[in-house]
């Protein structure tokens, strides 16, 4: 509770203000991307790949169209990807000797406030992306309107679950190439193999175990079962538990790494 109270104290909102102020420059472009992205996916996968897959009538899809099946996965995996990108590059930049974190740290703000402020910004950005994505999907009739808000909530949880540990790590990074490596060898494989594009049940059992262990699968499966109405209380509990642990551990680590980095 102490953490939560600190999170909503004024200083963090000042850091959020900084990022929102900068966002004034780029918000139009970002909204175009938030809408264009799902449009592209829905068209390419719905009209293209989807028609092909649906012809097979795969049992793994449990009677859903491929598009309906894949849509929550794409949203959740995309949210993860954006969360990673926004919480890595900008954090690394900001923590450099001339970065914006350094300016903030010389004011009454504490490293924790800086972290929470930036985290609030990622949360807002993820919310924007998830809402727009879901709205486009609604237009295509690929999401049940009653379940759409839940899907947005799951997406935001996933964003925080990935942003927190990403920031904890990125604040210690000094070279952009390290972020590239992380993206290529961790984030992209997660994106491809966490059941985003196909049901993991069709993988060999050993690989299924790997998929179950990966954090993104829990997000994707939670989003998908919520969106398709196939969620079980047990599954939801495990997924939310897993993601919450990521948030908690991520924040714990980030508070330490931020302090260590900004107070040398």
């Amino acid at each position, binding site marked *: 509770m102490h953490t939560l109270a600190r999170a909503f104290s*004024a*200083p963090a909102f*000042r*850091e959020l*203000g*900084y990022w929102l*102020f*900068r966002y004034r*420059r780029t918000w139009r472009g970002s909204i175009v991307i938030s809408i264009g992205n799902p449009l592209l996916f829905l068209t390419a996968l719905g009209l293209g790949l989807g028609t092909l897959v649906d012809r097979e009538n795969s049992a793994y899809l449990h009677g859903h169209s491929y598009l309906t099946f894949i849509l929550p996965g794409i949203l959740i995996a995309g949210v993860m990807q954006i969360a990673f990108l926004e919480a890595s590059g900008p954090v690394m930049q900001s923590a450099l*000797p*001339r*970065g*914006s974190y*350094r*300016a*903030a*740290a*010389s*004011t*009454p*703000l*504490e490293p924790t406030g800086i972290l929470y402020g930036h985290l609030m910004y990622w949360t807002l950005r993820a919310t924007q992306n998830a809402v727009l994505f879901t709205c486009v999907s609604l237009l295509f009739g690929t999401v049940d309107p009653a379940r759409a808000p839940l899907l947005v909530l799951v997406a935001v949880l996933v964003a925080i679950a990935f942003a927190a540990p990403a920031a904890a790590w990125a604040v210690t990074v000094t070279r952009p190439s390290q972020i590239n490596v992380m993206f290529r060898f961790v984030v992209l494989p997660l994106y491809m193999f966490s059941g985003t594009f196909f049901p993991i049940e069709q993988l060999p059992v050993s690989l299924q175990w790997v998929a179950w262990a990966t954090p993104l699968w829990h997000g994707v499966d939670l989003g998908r079962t919520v969106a398709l109405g196939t969620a079980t209380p047990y599954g939801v509990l495990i997924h939310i538990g897993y993601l919450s642990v990521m948030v908690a551990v991520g924040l714990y680590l980030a508070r330490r790494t931020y302090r260590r980095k*900004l*107070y*040398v």
Partner: protein
Amino acid sequence: MTDSSTVLIDARGLTKVYGKPGDKAGFTAVDGIDFQVRRGEAFGVLGANGAGKSSTMRMIACVSPATAGSLRILGYDSGADGAKIRARLGVVPQDDTIDTELTVRENLLIYGRYFGLSWKVLRERSTRLLEFTRLSEKAEDAVATLSGGMRRRLTIARALINEPEIVLLDEPTTGLDPQARHLLWERLFQLKQEGVTLLLTTHYMDEAEQLCDRLVVMDAGKIVAEGAPAELIARYTLREVLELRFAPGERQIMTDKCRGLAERMEELPDRLLLSTDNGEETLSAVHRQGVQPLTALVRRSSLEDVFLTLTGRSLLD
């Protein structure tokens, strides 16, 4: 007034060791220094590269925890009450943290927001501070269009946005041309007149002499002297210095011939310095020895010579 209300910065045994705690290979950048800065004073920290000036400043700015010793600022403990202290400090770091994503004015506004100031107050203050630092014309421009001196002025304007009681300036004029430096000095002097306490580091002697009421000379993490500029000059140097330059091939022979002609002699890579009470007389003596310098210059002793005497090195090496 009690002592604690006039002493704004009180450092005792202040120490900074970089590296992991308990790690024997840790590097001691600041080695148990003691000093006090009083309200309204302009206090200088003089030292060569790596002396520990920035490390000291960063501890005072409460962005770098002291490894040992005590540091009290504005009556607060720097370790426990960093946020309260920072709220009343203005900081001009050596590496400026001007935001290149924002315009000149936005830099002031956004920085001011960190102090919880209202937009209304900030609009008024930013206009005033841009005028004070002669940046009004650049207000709406991108930071990238500023020259080095303008950037430094912007950093100073930004440091004043919270109307601080103490302003920390880490090498405020390094890399600026003489005109830009004089403009900055004039502004800093004005601040001092307004009662703001200044703490600045520099390796320019003239800057220290111009601006500082009192200063400490730092070398390898330690304070080696403390006092008013004139006091230090009187204490550590003779009245005048004779500077001689020689043709490269003759330097060693000429230097040897000069030995014993002055009370103190310092060999620098490019010149020979003879400390003396009367430069002209010493120059005559030099000529009588048959020494033929390329150039000879008699000048009053300065802080530069204090530094040389104390550390055996030139400040700008």
